[in-house]
């Protein structure tokens, strides 16, 4: 049987690794290559690197860092951040990245995502969906470049991305980012059951049992930041990941 994947999601900013809270409050964590080497040793299921500034500042992906990361990585590696054209995607796949996430570009124009899925295969392209709750408790798709929500419904939007050809959806909650408040299980439930492609859920994990809850809610894979880079109440930086045996018992609780 297919194992549910547990994926550390690591944020790149100016070539360094950071962790955020609610997509803000950047804290420097360390060097991405060092982190990657530790995750290699821990035999992690998969890794996602996201450059959180590339789209905001209209920058190219940080090719030097990405090349170093890809060549050291003996597990599946995904990248998102500032991807605007097919040439960049081709380059990312060539340097050894398995899957490329497209987020901001698709909010206004699906043509890149459609063409990329067709040309490079659905399984190489991830559709990113950031969400945020409104004051009245409704959840909308969030535009991290503009720094505000739009009027799109996350379920409909995820279905639109699936129809456009992506092989996977990455669902990330702004409110829960770095909050240790658990995943948005209702939303994971709704989105995953409206899709026939895998869903990666992200945002809010505080413990290994949260991972299990998100999978029970319907996520094919769970991503998290804080629990894999922090340790203890004072958020001391410590890279960790459950062993294969721990994972097996966590996911079969």
């Amino acid at each position, binding site marked *: 049987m*297919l194992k549910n994947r547990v994926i550390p999601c690591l944020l790149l900013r100016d070539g360094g690794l950071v962790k955020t809270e609610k997509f803000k409050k950047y804290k420097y964590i360390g060097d991405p290559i060092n982190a990657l080497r530790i995750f*290699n040793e821990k*035999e992690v299921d998969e890794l996602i690197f996201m450059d959180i500034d590339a789209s905001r500042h209209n920058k190219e992906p940080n090719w030097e860092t990405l090349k170093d990361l890809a060549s050291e990585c003996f597990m599946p590696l995904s990248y998102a951040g500032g991807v605007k054209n097919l040439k960049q995607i081709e380059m990312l796949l060539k340097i050894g990245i398995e899957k490329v996430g497209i987020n901001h570009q698709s909010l206004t124009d699906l043509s890149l995502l459609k063409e990329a899925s067709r*040309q490079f*295969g659905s399984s190489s392209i991830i559709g990113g969906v950031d969400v945020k709750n409104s004051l009245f408790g409704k959840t909308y798709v969030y535009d991290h470049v503009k720094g505000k929500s739009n009027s799109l419904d996350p379920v409909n939007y995820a279905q639109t991305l699936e129809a456009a050809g992506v092989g996977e959806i990455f669902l990330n909650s702004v409110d829960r980012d770095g909050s240790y408040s658990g995943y948005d299980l209702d939303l994971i439930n709704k989105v995953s059951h409206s899709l026939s492609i895998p869903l990666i859920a992200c945002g809010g994990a505080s413990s290994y049992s949260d991972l299990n809850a998100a999978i029970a809610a319907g996520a094919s894979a769970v991503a998290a930041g804080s629990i894999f880079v922090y340790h203890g109440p004072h958020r001391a930086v410590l890279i960790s990941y459950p062993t294969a045996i721990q994972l097996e018992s966590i996911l079969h609780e």
Partner: protein
Amino acid sequence: MIHIINYGLGNLGSIKNMLKRIGVEAEIIDKPEQLEDASKIILPGVGAFDSGMSHLIDNNWLEILNRKVLTDKLPVLGICLGMQLMTKGSEEGALPGLGWMNAKVKKFSFDEGSKLKIPHMGWNKVIPAKSSKLLEDPENENRFYFVHSYYVESENETESLLWTHHGLKFVSAFERDNIMGVQFHPEKSHKFGLKLLKNFVERY
């Protein structure tokens, strides 16, 4: 020298890096004539079946590949789409495959409401269908990383090497004489993939 064929897209850097980690130099080649002094061949690949076959045809790979594999019997390992190209053909495309193995490629298809997702993406187990040098000294509980929407169905079960379950039992590796193919990505499967590639390098 191991030659990794570059015929378009594919995660060639990570295959080369994994081989380097084993201690073997490999060369990524993009011209058919470079295959003349190969001792082993890796045929990688991601993407669609027809686009893979067209690349091989348009860039004149077929003659030398057939000669090296079928006549000279060089060990060859197909990875992911590379494995699928070794079959007779795929539901994904109209072009015939290389036709080296008695197998066909079909699309995963599940009933509406099924919990099973397509692509089959992530870590899964493999069940040996026969013994092989490729599988010697296995790690405890072998698992490998898969990403694919189409699977290999064998027409000659003696060629099947590994099986995997995803809604149905499909051929996740095959082997006949010098020809081997794996549906998963050994280059992205930690020590499990490393061992398999090491066996390919050292035992053939």
